[in-house]
């Protein structure tokens, strides 16, 4: 469990990135921070592994104030995945994954063996192990990034827009993969995105931030969509713009669902392939990944 207690972050240049932020992030669940650029998502995330220290307030992990812990040790115990994977370009894939275990003193051989297993876990062929990151596609790089994040079997996994830079189709795949992984592993995931769809798909708890590091709304995806707290949230989730208000339209070959922008959303099918979504659901249902 991660707890933010009245955390404020003011950067030396005066920017208030996070303003009096308090929140509990439950264990084994995914919390998603979502918001426009500059709303303090990254700052919040990075305070958890002390890449950034709060100006005031405190953060506890499982009851211990992280301000009292050694930052380097703390970081080695928390998985971190970022956009563009943040892999070390001069190390082979397998060595990238083995980096943190080796920093923690594991022998190179053992760390590499475990790294190979992790490649299986994230669905990467072992034949890629001896390549350099630049020789992989963007989606593959992100998978390696996730594998590295998992390498020390951390309880907490921080993900900063991990799928922000990949093709939409690959992104959808990676999202499903993450749902599957999370279903299996049950980590405490803190996920940052600027894509509300992604937030709703992945988050058990979604935190909508507005510029200046203020919380606009916290809740499960269903709660937010059904009861947006204010106009900002409505706009943000697209409810107001009509994006979320779909209607049926006859359209040559059959009925299609169209949103308020005139955008085709899909077709209405009868059944319910998926289970209930409210509250905790998202991770419990995989759908068909392909």
């Amino acid at each position, binding site marked *: 469990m991660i707890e933010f207690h009245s955390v404020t972050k003011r950067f030396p240049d005066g920017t208030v990135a996070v303003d009096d932020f308090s929140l509990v992030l439950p264990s084994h669940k995914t919390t998603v921070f979502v918001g426009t*650029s500059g709303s303090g998502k990254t700052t919040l995330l990075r305070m958890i592994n002390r890449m950034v220290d709060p100006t005031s307030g405190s953060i506890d992990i499982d009851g211990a104030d992280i301000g009292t812990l050694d930052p380097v040790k703390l970081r080695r115990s928390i998985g971190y995945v970022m956009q563009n994977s943040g892999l070390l370009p001069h190390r082979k894939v397998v060595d990238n994954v083995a980096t943190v275990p080796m920093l923690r003193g594991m022998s190179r051989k053992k760390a590499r063996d475990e790294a190979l297993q992790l490649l299986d876990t994230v669905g990467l*062929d072992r034949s890629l192990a001896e390549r350099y990151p630049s020789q992989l*596609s*963007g*989606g*593959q790089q992100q998978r390696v990034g996730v594998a590295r994040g998992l390498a020390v079997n951390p309880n907490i996994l921080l993900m900063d827009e991990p799928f922000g830079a990949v*093709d939409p*189709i690959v992104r959808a795949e990676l999202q499903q993969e993450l749902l599957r992984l999370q279903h299996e592993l049950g980590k405490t995931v803190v996920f940052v995105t600027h894509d509300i769809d992604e937030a709703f798909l992945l988050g058990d708890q979604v935190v909508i931030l507005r510029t200046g590091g203020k919380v606009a709304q916290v809740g499960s995806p269903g709660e937010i969509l059904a009861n947006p707290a204010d106009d900002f949230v409505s706009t943000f989730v697209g409810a107001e713009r009509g994006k979320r208000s779909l209607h049926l339209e006859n359209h040559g070959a059959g009925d299609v669902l169209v949103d308020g922008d005139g955008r085709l959303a899909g077709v209405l099918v009868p059944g319910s392939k998926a289970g209930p979504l409210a509250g905790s659901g998202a991770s419990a249902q995989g759908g068909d990944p392909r």
Partner: protein
Amino acid sequence: MNFFAEALQWLVDPANYVGLNAIPLRLAQHLGFTVVTLVIASAIAIPLGFLIGHTGRGRSVAVASAGAFRAIPTLGLLTLVALSIGIGLNAPYIALTVLAVPPILAGAYTGFEAIDRRTIDAARAVGMSEVQIVRQVEVPLGLPLLIGGLRSAALQVVATATLAAYVADFGLGRYLFAGLKTRDYAEMLGGSILVILMALALEGLFALTQRFVVPRGVLAGRPTDIRTRSSRPRPVMESAIEEGQKNVHSK
């Protein structure tokens, strides 16, 4: 260090401010020599560099020969040239031009190369002719690196122009050679200090120019609300479908 004290004394000695060997005269000669050399070298290197930078052709040849040119010992070249064309300023001009061309050339073409390809592509796409692209886009945007190249060339030429005095009654090098041969170290050191001061002054001038010619838009303020470049890089594109299939196999 009384050595330096003597040199300072030499620098302020009024006797060194009169006649054909007066410090101001030597300074003016040295500066003139440096400027002329830079102009000649620029006349050769800049058009060539622009051509290489614009077309992208001949780059590897330029890089390789710049390396070789850099390795040519200037004193050796100077004497060799002087033996065939005689004493006077011509041989030093040639030798020093050889010295100054590589950095200017590199500055010229790397200036072009450092420009975002998309900017040039867009300029072409909106209908600029090649000449217009060079003049209106590449030259202004490549200027900072070109000035950088000129700057390092100037630095080298100022210091090395002392060699002009090897075969001509010219420049601050006269103090160095005269001081060396008569073991008048105060004169030699004083001359060196003058060279260093002139180099410093040129450095400052170039630093200013560089600041002045950098197109303001390139430096101007940070992007305001949205940080397109840094936080939203172009999606890493790939053959998504194919990757999907690969993954099917791997599972």
